[in-house]
Each structure stands twice: as structure tokens, then as C-alpha cells.
């Protein structure tokens, strides 16, 4: 198999909602193994960007390549197969309320594994994913019985169950207390290490960004304003950049 140079590549992406032009010719790429953070103010279009990458939102124009495939040229079946390689951690966790933790984790398997595979391996896959996030004992609990941090971990476990090549995190530490937020950031690093997955992290939590990023892109006015390491960005004198660090 030909080695892919970019895990994700976005070229000249545009997206508007009415008169609100959220993304303007936005371009970026993620290389294998990289952990890229998209930093921007609330409402700057960060979540819209990663939802465009997974095709939950259709952009107005531009190209998006995920694992070498132009997602706008894929049919539904091809898109579903590609989605098995891309994990998505939702800001609200998006755990299915009516299902137990086990059923939540098994849900992605029903589409991508055959019944025989599920019968043989689902239990061990669920167990492994839960142990990776340190919550093996919650397997038969309902999401409503879990704390905010636990729900985030379970949502991450569900993301990991198909062993994705790239994980998209939508504000993973928003709404959590500082200690839990730090634990989630550490967990993201452990996951990165174990699964060798690339990641795009949408965040404005500077601690999380400092801990998890290899590179940071600042999304300002719908554009890729600047891209550099966290350490280098700290020393950029531009007032628009300084706003985030001061």
C-alpha cells in the first residue's frame, strides 16, 4: 500500500451559514502521528471545520482528503467505511442515553463487523477499550449514572473501539473541572501513544493545548491565521495571537 503523506488535507474550504461566512479558503494538513490543535474563539468555526472533515456538514466549496480519499467524491458506503478509520469525540459526548455503556461501545461494531466477528471479539474489544480509559467497572451502567469526566472517558472508549487511524476531538475538556480536564488531556496522550493515531483537537483550553499539541493552528476570521508549535506561538507579538496567551 502506498504510504500516505497527509492523514488529512483540507484545501480552500469555504462554509457559510446565511450571511455568516464561517470558513474562508481555509487550508491545513495533518501528517501521520501528528497531534494538531485548532485554536480559536467560540463561534469561530472550529467545530464546523471538523464536522466538515467527517462529512457531517457539507462545505460550500473546497477539497477535503482523509486518508488519501477526497470525501466529496465518496458514496455513502465508502464514506461509512472511511468513518470506521476516523474517531470523533463529541463535545457533548453523545452517548446513547437509552443504552448501557456496553451497548454504547458495541454500537459502532454492528456496522463494521460481521455478526460472527461481533460474537467472537466484541466482548474483548469492549473490555480493552474500557480498560484503556480506566473504567472497566462501568460496563453495565447507564450513561446517566456516570459523572461528566466518566462520560467523556466512555465516549473516548467508544471512539477507540474501532482502533481509528485519526481521532477528531471536539473541545474534549470543555465543561470539566481543572483536575478532570488534566486527566482527560493525559488520557489523550496515552491513547495517542498506544494507538499511534493522528489527531485534530479543537480546543481553547490552553493547558490541554500545551499538553497535547505537536502543532497549533489559529483559526481567526475563518482563515488559517498562523500555524506553529505552542512554544513558538507564545512568543509571537501579533495582538490577535497574544489574546489567547495573555
Amino acid at each position, binding site marked *: 500500500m502506498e504510504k500516505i503523506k497527509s492523514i488529512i488535507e483540507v484545501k480552500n474550504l469555504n462554509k457559510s451559514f446565511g450571511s455568516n461566512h464561517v470558513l474562508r479558503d481555509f487550508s491545513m494538513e495533518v501528517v501521520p502521528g501528528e497531534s494538531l490543535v485548532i485554536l480559536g474563539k467560540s463561534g469561530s468555526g472550529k467545530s464546523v471545520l471538523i*464536522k466538515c472533515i467527517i462529512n457531517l456538514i457539507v462545505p460550500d466549496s473546497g477539497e477535503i482528503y482523509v486518508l488519501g480519499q477526497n470525501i466529496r467524491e465518496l458514496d455513502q458506503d465508502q464514506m*461509512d*467505511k472511511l468513518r470506521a478509520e476516523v474517531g*470523533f469525540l463529541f463535545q*457533548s459526548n*453523545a452517548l*446513547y*442515553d437509552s443504552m448501557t455503556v456496553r451497548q454504547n461501545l458495541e454500537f459502532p461494531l454492528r456496522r*463494521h463487523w460481521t455478526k460472527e466477528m461481533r460474537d467472537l471479539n466484541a466482548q474483548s474489544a469492549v473490555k480493552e477499550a474500557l480498560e484503556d480509559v480506566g473504567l472497566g467497572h462501568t460496563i453495565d451502567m447507564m450513561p446517566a449514572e456516570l459523572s461528566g469526566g466518566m462520560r467523556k472517558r466512555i465516549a473516548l472508549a467508544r471512539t477507540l473501539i474501532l482502533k481509528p487511524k485519526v481521532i477528531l476531538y471536539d473541545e474534549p475538556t470543555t465543561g470539566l473541572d481543572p483536575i478532570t480536564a488534566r486527566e482527560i488531556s493525559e488520557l489523550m496522550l496515552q491513547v495517542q501513544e498506544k494507538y499511534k493515531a493522528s489527531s485534530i483537537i479543537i480546543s481553547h483550553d490552553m493547558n490541554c493545548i500545551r499538553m497535547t499539541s505537536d502543532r497549533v493552528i489559529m483559526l481567526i476570521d475563518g482563515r488559517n491565521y498562523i500555524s506553529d508549535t505552542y512554544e513558538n506561538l507564545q512568543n509571537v507579538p501579533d495582538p490577535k495571537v497574544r489574546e489567547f496567551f495573555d
Partner: protein
Amino acid sequence: MIHLIKIDSEFLREVGEIARFTGRFFSEVIKPKQEWEEFINQCFWIGFKTLTLVGITAFIMGLVMTIQSRPTLLEFGAVSMLPAMVSVSLVREIAPVITALICAGKIGSGIGAELGSMRVTEQIDAMEVSGTNPFKYLVVSRVLASTLMVPLLSSLAIAISLYGGYLGVNIRGNVSWHLYWLQSFGALGYGDFIPSLIKTFFFGFAIGIVGCYKGYNSKKGTEGVGRSATSAVIVASLVVFIIDLIAVQVTDLLGLT
């Protein structure tokens, strides 16, 4: 005037959206790989969990209708017609429509709130990301279950309400079990049962589609979920009456009355 035009255009847009949603339902339902497990699960929730409510209501409906009709028939010296009159009313109209209205309230609001909450908490997006077609999993299974369960509930409501009618007849009078059923079924024909059954499939379909449409397209957070549930009940109830009106006209045109 401008306000009225705005309301009209919103109403027409809503009707168009529901029509498009229904069209999508038909295009998804003919595609292979149905979610049968979820369909059975929904049949249980929609059918079995509504059974008690429908049963109690139907019993009271039959009983009360008989008790209320008796004095009028007595006045005309036609009290012997009571089982026949009650059975025709219940089978043709009252049991199916009341059952559909109960289902519009319970099932329509339940589906609207459930899907609405799933929409605003991104669970529907999560389903799509995991490679499951959420429309097929959530909408098709619920609409099919509702289409199948409402006629079953309605049939059961007819049976229970007729039994209620039997008790109602015997509160003041004395009609044997055998005679009651003989008179009830003697007044009924296929032209009463079949149109009544057919229209309940439409009721069930409409309740499912409206509930799913409202929930699936829910917006504006928890406030939107509440609105979805409420408007699902209102619109589904209204659609039930419109279908009933059309069904009565069609039955009349076909000479089945």
C-alpha cells in the same frame, strides 16, 4: 396581512418539509438491510407499553357510551337497538379515532422528545459517524412499528370497548352475553370493519412520521425538544382528524356506509 402571509408561508414550508421527509422514508424503506432488531424493540415500546392506557380508555369509552345512549333510545322505545348502535359507533369511528388520539399523545410526543433530545445532544450525529444510517435506524423502524401497532391497538380497543358496552347495557337492563354479541355483530358488516382497519394503518403511519419529523429536525436545545414533543402531538392529532375525514368521504363514495 403581512403577518398572515408569513404564517401561511411557514405552514406551507412545513407541509413541504414533512412531504420531503415522508419521501425520504419511502426511499429508505425500500433499500435493503432494515433495522429489524430496533423495529421489534420499537413494536414493544409502542405497542405493549401503550396497551394498558388504550385498554382502560377503550373500556371506559364503551361503558360510558352505552350508559349515555340508553336514555335517548329509551325515549324512542328503541332500547333493544342499544348493542347494535354502540357497536357500529365504536367499530366505525370512536374506537379507532380515540385510540389514534391516545397514540398521537403518547407515541407522538415520546418519539418527538426522544429524537429531539438525541438531535440536540449530538447522538444522531454520533450514529452517523459510527457508520449507521440514523434515518433508517431511528425513523424507519419507528414509523414501521407505529404503522403496525396502531391498527393492533385499535382492534384491541374495539374488542375491549364492546365488552365495556356489554357491561354498560347490563347496568340498567338485562341482556344475555349471547344476545349482546349476536345483536352487536348482527349490525356490523365487512364494510364497517375493513375501512376502520385500513384507516388505522394511515393513523399509525401519520403519528410515526410526524413524531419522527418533529424530533429529527429539533433545534434550539432543550427548549426545542419540548417544542418538538408538543407540536408532534398537535400536528399528529390534527392529521388523524384529516385522515378520518378523508376516510369517511372515501368510504361513503365507495358505498360502504
